[in-house]
């Protein structure tokens, strides 16, 4: 039912001069929600107006509350002519609709204009009163929590994981409407921004409804994308994983435990306890009926699938699928079969057993099959009826079915780490979907037969279980070499494993990982319509095949045997196709050692030629051993014969199977021919192979002190400091016409390499550090242009301890390691005690200092609302800390004396803390789901923002670079401001999903669209948390363990 939205306009600052004569501005504000508009008084002649308005109240349906943004427009009053707009602020009020998220939006928000950028700031207060709590859950989807994070959010636990939710809405793109010819660029940009806001809201509401129908209360791994199709319209689509989450109360300071659940239990199992059914859900219906859930799962899908045979559809599209091929799915061992039938029965009733999660609660992910992917090329047509976007739905339907069948072929019943994407050029659109085929435990999916499963589960060693093949070894859908697991020696594992998920926390890894990229360019003839689509579909399998070969070769070259976080992006332009595959390579201890790469020529008669080959071979071998050293890969030597491994012909050199877990239906045929020649891969006669080798050897290693990965964290690095730096870097490269494929490849590869080098150089002050979650996106904005955008986070870590950890992993020094470990633990404790002891003395002093200096306080005043909220909170913590420490002073001091060592470190920690205390306004951003050294205590809601910026004075704004630099900085600033207004101090799982840049230097014009998203959170430093209470001791040690593991 309805709710009341209240908004108050407090003040403005740094407004632009709108009246040249007086150098001042007569500003007033329009507040609009739906069709209702309020205005403030005009505040004459000021650049820092104080409106201090009344509360503007909007009485609206909660459906509107979910769909509409609050729109605030700042204008300059003009007596004689029309009022000039200064800029706008859109506020997404969704976070206010959920009882567990934010309660008020209050703070300075940048006033944004699509032509001029940020023009001053406005201070607003926004609240929502929802009338009837119970009723609203039934009527709309208010209260469903959304998370971009692709794992179970840190302060929740999963009671149940319901499964895949998807929705898409379409509309006409305002930029292409007839009216656009007569309106100003500003009006058209604003229409577009507003429309997308509305569509996102609607989409979120509809997804929320589906979640409620399934009996969930949250969407995790929410991924929303825009397809700017141009003439044919604008599609906003989203996928996610419906879950039932329960908040973990870890903070005794604020904790009032739900009366039913005992706190001690929570302590023991703060993660994901088996007693789930026993614990009452905090919200949502306690036990959703399965029948109800499934029957109403996807109501929009009721049409028959025949609708997919529309005229525009090209059935000749390749529908490439990795890891598929052949018929499979026969069940193997009886135990496994039983298990599979159980979970499968649960999963098979779902239309799509897909999960957008990339990290899972322990025990959820049982086995991983390999990457599955599907692509299809479509011709865009006009969407005639936006209310029933059947064709778009059908397209995705088709691809998902494909993925599902690929997973089945791998003997898997589920797909995890699932994502979808598109690439559009003119009227051609490539739809892609990919994920990792897997077998999941039914523990988190409503199923009664938990117990049998459990018993089975406990037998599987946790560190290697997920590597064990899920498919039938006698009926492998593709050629692969199986061995017994190098960890448990009981189950079969493949020789390489490709996945789209994050490395499971429990996985046994040898050494460190690294970013591996395969890059490829393919020219294509200019064509129109169906001809063009056909050409593209014909090219796709080859592109994918080569990308895969490159990945495999690079993986071997680094002496690794598994890829995580694999993401293959294929971008289409008028005259070329671009493929970029990124993943993080690791050495899984459970999998066999990858062996080398062997080069051979076909004409062995020539001596010089032989020499050339042996030279190359030497180079490759050298690189492999160097890489192994670099990534600290020194697996324990195992003599295979002793264990009696059933590998048909054990060879030192493992072969590179181009085919493994790869290839589409068509390609797999190609593969087989390759795979049967069971010698090696790189034949030098093959020009492609020469190119491959060159590509292999030109990848320069990361400079000393740097590591990089595209997953959440790097295996082998644990001691993250709190220093993080999120960044976005964009490069556009202009190509010459008439380049060969090789030339293009080289350029593209160099472009990516140079970009990485630049990043390393920029971030050199953070060494030792790791670039995590390196997310590359490529695009072909126009002919002969390649755009590469990277968003990642650089995180510093402590070198000494990481070395120590490395030592510990050595097997022979086991006992020593244990003692060392003990020492280290003690060391940690000392550190805690020491660092915390000066806290009550130093920090309150810092606070009072700030208070006494009015000038010093000035900057923080602006964030007062936030500061107040936080400081009262911190104050509370400090009080607690103080009382506790009084009891333990003695031990602290004795420890202090005993350890002269950690002083330097503790000082640095202290300074860190006082630093973060002094600047309240700092908002951290990270693409990861966590913040190192800190604990997320509250999720405030999803941030999903879309901005357009346009200029007609490109040169004056510093050219294209200046223009984009400013715009990205502005987007960051707006994200930070909105998070701060929600009361947060960080954004996690941040991503820039869209960065469309168009320029016309001749006209001195440029336009850019950026879409960003993330989760607004409140975090506190763990060092502060630890000092809060003795009670939390156990909880914090647990979290720190968790932090290490992740």
């Amino acid at each position, binding site marked *: 039912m309805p709710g009341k939205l209240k908004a108050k306009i407090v003040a403005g*600052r*740094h407004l632009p001069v709108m009246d040249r004569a007086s150098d001042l501005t007569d500003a007033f504000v329009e507040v609009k929600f739906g069709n209702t508009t309020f205005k403030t008084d005009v505040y004459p002649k000021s650049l820092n107006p104080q409106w201090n308005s009344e509360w503007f109240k909007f009485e609206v349906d909660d459906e509107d509350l979910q769909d509409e943004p609050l729109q605030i427009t700042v204008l300059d009053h003009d007596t004689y002519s029309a009022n000039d707009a200064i800029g706008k602020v859109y506020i997404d009020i969704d976070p206010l609709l959920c009882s567990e998220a934010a309660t008020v939006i209050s703070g*300075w928000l*940048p006033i944004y204009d699509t032509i001029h950028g*940020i023009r001053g*700031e406005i201070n607003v207060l926004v609240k929502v009163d929802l009338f009837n709590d119970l009723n609203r859950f039934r009527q709309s989807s208010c209260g469903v929590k959304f998370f971009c994070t692709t794992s179970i959010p840190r302060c929740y636990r999963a009671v149940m994981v319901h499964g895949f939710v998807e929705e898409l809405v379409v509309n006409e793109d305002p930029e292409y409407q007839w009216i656009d010819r007569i309106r100003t660029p500003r009006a058209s940009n604003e229409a577009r921004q507003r429309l997308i806001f509305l569509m996102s809201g609607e989409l979120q509401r509809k997804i929320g409804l589906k979640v409620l129908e399934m009996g969930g209360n949250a969407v995790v791994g929410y991924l929303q994308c825009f397809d700017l199709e141009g003439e044919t319209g604008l599609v906003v689509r989203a996928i996610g994983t419906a879950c039932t989450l329960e908040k973990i109360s870890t903070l005794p300071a604020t904790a009032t435990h739900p009366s039913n659940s005992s706190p001690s239990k929570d302590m023991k199992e703060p993660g994901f306890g088996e007693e789930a059914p026993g614990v009452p859900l905090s919200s949502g219906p306690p036990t959703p009926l399965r029948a109800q859930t499934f029957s109403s799962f996807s109501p929009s899908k009721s049409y028959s699938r025949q609708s997919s045979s529309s005229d525009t559809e090209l059935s000749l599209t390749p529908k490439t699928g990795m890891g598929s091929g052949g018929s499979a799915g026969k069940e193997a061992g009886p135990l496994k079969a039983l298990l599979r039938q159980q979970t499968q029965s649960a999963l098979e009733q779902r239309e799509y057993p897909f999960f957008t999660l990339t990290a899972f609660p322990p025990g959820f992910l049982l086995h991983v099959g390999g990457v599955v992917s599907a692509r299809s090329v479509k011709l865009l047509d006009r969407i005639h009826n936006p209310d029933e976007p059947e064709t778009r739905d059908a397209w995705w339907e088709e691809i998902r079915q494909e993925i599902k069948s690929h997973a089945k072929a791998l003997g898997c019943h589920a797909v995890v780490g699932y994502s979808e994407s598109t690439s559009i050029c003119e009227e051609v659109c490539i739809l892609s979907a990919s994920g990792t085929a897997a077998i999941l435990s039914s523990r988190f999916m409503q199923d009664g037969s938990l117990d049998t499963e459990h018993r089975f589960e406990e037998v599987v060693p946790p560190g290697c279980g997920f590597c064990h093949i899920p498919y039938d070894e006698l009926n492998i859908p593709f050629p692969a070499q199986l061995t017994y697991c190098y960890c448990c020696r009981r189950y079969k594992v493949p020789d390489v494993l490709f996945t789209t998920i994050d490395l499971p926390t429990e996985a046994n890894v040898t050494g460190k990982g690294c970013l591996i990229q395969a890059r490829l360019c393919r020219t294509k003839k200019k064509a129109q319509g169906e001809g063009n689509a056909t050409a593209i579909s014909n090219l796709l399998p080859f592109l994918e095949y080569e990308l895969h070969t490159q990945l495999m070769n690079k993986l071997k070259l680094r002496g690794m045997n598994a890829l995580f976080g694999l993401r293959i992006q294929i971008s289409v332009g008028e005259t070329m196709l671009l493929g970029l595959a990124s993943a993080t390579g690791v050495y899984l201890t459970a999998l066999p050692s990858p062996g080398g790469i062997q080069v051979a020529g076909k004409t062995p008669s020539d001596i010089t030629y032989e020499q050339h080959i042996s030279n190359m071979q030497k180079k490759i071998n050298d690189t492999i051993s160097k890489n192994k050293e670099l990534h600290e890969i020194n697996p324990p030597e195992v003599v295979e014969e002793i264990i009696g491994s059933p590998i048909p012909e054990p060879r030192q050199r493992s072969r590179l199977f181009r085919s493994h877990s790869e290839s589409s239906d068509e390609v797999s045929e190609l593969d087989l021919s390759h795979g049967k020649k069971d010698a090696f891969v790189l034949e030098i006669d093959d020009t492609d192979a020469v190119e491959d080798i060159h590509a292999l050897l030109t990848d320069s290693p990361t*400079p*000393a002190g740097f590591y990089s990965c595209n997953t959440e964290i790097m295996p082998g690095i644990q001691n993250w400091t709190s220093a993080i*730096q*999120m*960044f*976005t*870097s*964009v*490069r*556009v*490269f*202009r*190509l*010459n016409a008439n380049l060969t494929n090789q030339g293009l490849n080289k*350029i593209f590869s160099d472009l990516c390499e*140079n970009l990485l*080098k*630049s*990043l*390393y*150089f*920029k*971030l*050199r002050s953070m060494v030792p550090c790791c670039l995590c979650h390196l997310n590359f996106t490529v695009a072909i904005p126009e002919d002969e*242009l390649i*755009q590469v955008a990277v968003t990642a986070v650089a995180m510093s870590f402590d070198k000494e301890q990481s070395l120590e950890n490395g030592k510990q992993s050595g097997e022979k020094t086991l006992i020593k390691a244990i003692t060392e470990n003990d020492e280290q633990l003690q060391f940690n404790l000392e550190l805690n005690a020491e660092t915390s002891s000066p806290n009550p003395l130093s920090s309150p002093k810092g606070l009072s200092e700030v208070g006494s200096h009015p*000038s010093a306080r*000035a*900057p923080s005043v*602006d964030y007062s609302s936030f500061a107040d909220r936080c400081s009262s909170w911190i104050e509370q913590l400090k009080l607690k800390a103080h009382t506790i420490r009084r009891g333990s002073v003695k031990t602290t001091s004795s420890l202090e004396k005993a350890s002269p060592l950690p002083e330097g470190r503790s000082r640095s920690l202290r300074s860190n803390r006082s*630093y973060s205390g*002094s*600047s309240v306004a*700092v*908002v*951290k*951003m990270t693409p990861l789901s966590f913040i190192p050294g800190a604990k997320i205590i509250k999720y405030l809601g999803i941030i999903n923002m879309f901005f357009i910026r346009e200029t007609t004075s490109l040169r004056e704004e*510093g050219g*294209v*670079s*200046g223009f*984009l*630099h*400013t715009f*990205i*900085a*502005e987007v*960051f*600033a707006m994200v*930070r*401001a909105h998070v701060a207004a929600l009361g947060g101090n960080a954004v996690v799982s941040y991503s820039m999903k869209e960065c469309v*840049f168009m320029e016309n230097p001749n006209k001195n014009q440029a336009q850019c669209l950026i879409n960003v998203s993330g989760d607004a959170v409140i975090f506190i430093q763990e060092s502060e948390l630890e000092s809060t209470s003795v009670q939390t001791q156990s909880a914090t040690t647990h979290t720190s363990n968790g932090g290490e593991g992740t």
Partner: protein
Amino acid sequence: MSVELDVFVGNTTIMDKEVYQLWLNGYTVNDAVKVRIEGGVMEECEASAEVLLSDTMDQYRTFQMCERLLHHPAKLANQLLFQIPPDRQAMLIERYYAFDDSFVREVLGKKLSKGTKKDLDDVSTKTGITLKSCRRQFDNFKRVFKVVEELKGPLVENIRQHFLLPDQLARDYAAIVFFANNRFETGKKKLQYLTFQDFAFCAGQLINNWTLGAVDNMTEDMDVDLDKEFLQDLKDLKILITDKDLLDQHKSLVCTALRGKTNVFNEMEANFKNLSRGLVNIAAKLINAKDVRDFFIDLVEKFIEPCRSDKWTSIDMNLYLTHYTNSAHILDTFKHHAVWTRYMGVIKSCILKMYHD
């Protein structure tokens, strides 16, 4: 083939101190890259010239975007566009407002007008400081001048608060503003040997003792202008040289006190009347704005140069000025003790600072 667009934006704005300094010094991007390459950063970080160029361009762009904010340092702290840690902010401001001593010597005491700005290219060639850097420094002077001109209260404090400058830098700016406001002549050949710090010290003395703010900081005109009443009163000191008895008496008192304590006693005795006339005449003329401008040149011509030609040491100078000041108070018919103290206190410390052995 070319990189058409290349940007890097960090959530925390990354700024390299070294590049910032090169930017402030007015180097072009290419020159800055050359300097960096020579500095050896490439070998240190395994970078190529390309990487360095990209980084330098990026940094320069960031600085240009920040420059607008640096003009109003208070804004830097509460703007939202760049997330810059407070210590970095302080560094940015301090370095932006830092200036070259050789540059400031060229414009010290000049009117901060468009005309002066036009002549900056001459200053640039003379000092070897890039024109860009000269312009920035000049604009800084002008900006600070404009803001504090209208403000009440103590000059140094105003500058420190409005521009968030560290104490020493705020004092230097106070000196620059004070000199510009009173248009003191500092460019004459005879004054060339004086450094900016010499002048800054003197300015501090004048601001603290001779302005209205020195006696009463509630008044409107405060620190930038000299206390008119005091200048008027200075005319009364003329009696020290016009009254022959007083002059003789003063001389004998000083001579008695100094006899045997200095190597230049004879020169001092011979020159006493000339020197005394010089100092008192300067005092008497200060009521005219034109003579205020010549204050430093007068001090040098009438007092410092004669002493230097007689080879006085700084110790001699100190001794002489101390006794010269104190003896006047013993004179029977001399009544203007307060004015004398206020005048001679400043004169003494200025001369001692300006007298280089």
